[in-house]
């Protein structure tokens, strides 16, 4: 990692309010190129909302978000153009059930980037190959296991060559024996230099892949640090309690 590199993701003073509940209460977060930043915290702490604000699936109430230097919230910014640079992977995969795996991957290539069919399919096949599912290109989501579906979803985001990828509890909906295949793909992405912001509770994965771990609670970042320190010797009592709970 180069020091002094411009951040890929830069969040300042982010707040999000749903009616009278403030879910995010001033988040500051910087993710440098090729970093994997891990976000943990109890449910309802605002982790998912934080991710969803990054590509404005949720409209932030206040604060600023920059992706590769571009203000995501500026009026002049084409949010659809920004979104394809921000890959997103969801807990429930959200594959399009009426399309084959390949078509899931190529839809945005064709309709957003305007790639001709042959080129879109070439890129789509390459993306499926990266997640180890080139042989499932013609399968429909319903014919795939949860782990395979999630890897197709990763390929769908990956095919657009995003600058950063957001993972919202990517393995929480998976049977335990399928978790590993998805984490392996994420490790590969990390090795390939992808910048990632990951909400997950896979501590073992965080220990060996994360550059930084962030603990969130009640809409604020309580504590952050390298995984060894965060998991072994967190300084905040709330973090300790949560880690102890996770480890049980």
């Amino acid at each position, binding site marked *: 990692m180069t020091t002094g590199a411009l951040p890929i993701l830069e969040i300042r003073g982010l707040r999000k309010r749903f009616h009278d509940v403030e879910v995010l209460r001033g988040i500051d977060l910087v993710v440098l190129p090729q970093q994997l930043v891990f976000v943990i915290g109890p449910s309802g702490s605002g982790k998912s909302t934080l991710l969803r604000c990054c590509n404005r*699936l949720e409209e932030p109430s206040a604060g600023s978000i920059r992706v590769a230097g571009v203000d995501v919230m500026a009026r002049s910014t084409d949010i659809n153009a920004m979104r394809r640079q921000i*890959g997103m992977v969801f807990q429930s995969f959200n594959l399009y059930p009426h399309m084959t795996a390949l078509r899931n991957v190529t*839809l945005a290539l064709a*309709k957003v980037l305007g790639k001709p069919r042959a080129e879109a399919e070439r890129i789509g096949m390459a993306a499926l190959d990266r997640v180890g599912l080139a042989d499932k290109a013609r399968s429909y989501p319903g014919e795939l296991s949860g782990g395979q579906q999630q890897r197709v979803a990763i390929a769908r985001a990956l095919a*657009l060559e995003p600058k950063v990828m957001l993972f919202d509890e990517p393995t929480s909906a998976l049977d335990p024996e399928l978790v590993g295949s998805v984490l392996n793909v994420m490790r590969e992405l990390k090795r390939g230099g992808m910048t990632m912001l990951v909400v997950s509770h896979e501590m073992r994965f965080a220990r060996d892949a994360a550059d930084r771990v962030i603990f969130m609670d009640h809409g604020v970042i309580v504590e952050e640090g390298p995984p060894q320190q965060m998991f072994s010797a967190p300084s905040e009592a709330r973090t300790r309690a949560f880690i102890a709970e996770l480890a049980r």
Partner: protein
Amino acid sequence: MEAIVQQFFNLAIMERALPLILSGLEQTIVICLLVIPLGLIGGLAFAIISLSRLRTVRWAAIAGIDFFRAIPPLVLLIFIYAGLPFAGLRPSPMLAVAIAFFLNTSSYYGEIYRAGIESVGQGQWDAARSTGLYGYQTLAYVVLPQAVRNVLPDLVSNTVEVVKLTSIASVVALPELLYSADMARSVTFNSSPIVLAAAIYLVMLWPIVRLISRLERRVAA
């Protein structure tokens, strides 16, 4: 028994009435080919407008759907055909039928599409929008295909209702199937032409009704 056969199943009279009834059938088919696509397109428009982020637009669409679902289509048709001339507008029978059916069937189809669109989870929108697809692209490529699939039995079912409803065009003297059959009845003083018309409706719609049952099983599976 003999009298019943004479009055309702008189083949000689049916044969005499057949040309008239076939021309009525032709009119019914023309009406269907006009009002079903109009309803399907209008309904989609209603449904999309009712999804608007602007509350007033959304409410206007929903109010429109509710209004035209609550008004009896016969009342609507007579109002358009016989009421509008007082405002200086004099629609032909076919135009009056087209307008009345557009308003009535669009609202029904609209409600079905709306239920279908709502049956597709928010996750599909999220996923598609996160790849940079515009809202209308998400609707067209991701949401609508699933929505239509989910409500296909209802769409087909409603279409059967529309076909049956075309018989109300007879009140504005549009010589469709029922009107022609009734004319034949009044000329022959015999109910057999009506029975023949009923048989034609049955033959036309029964396969579609069967299809609906099969579709419903498939969607339930």
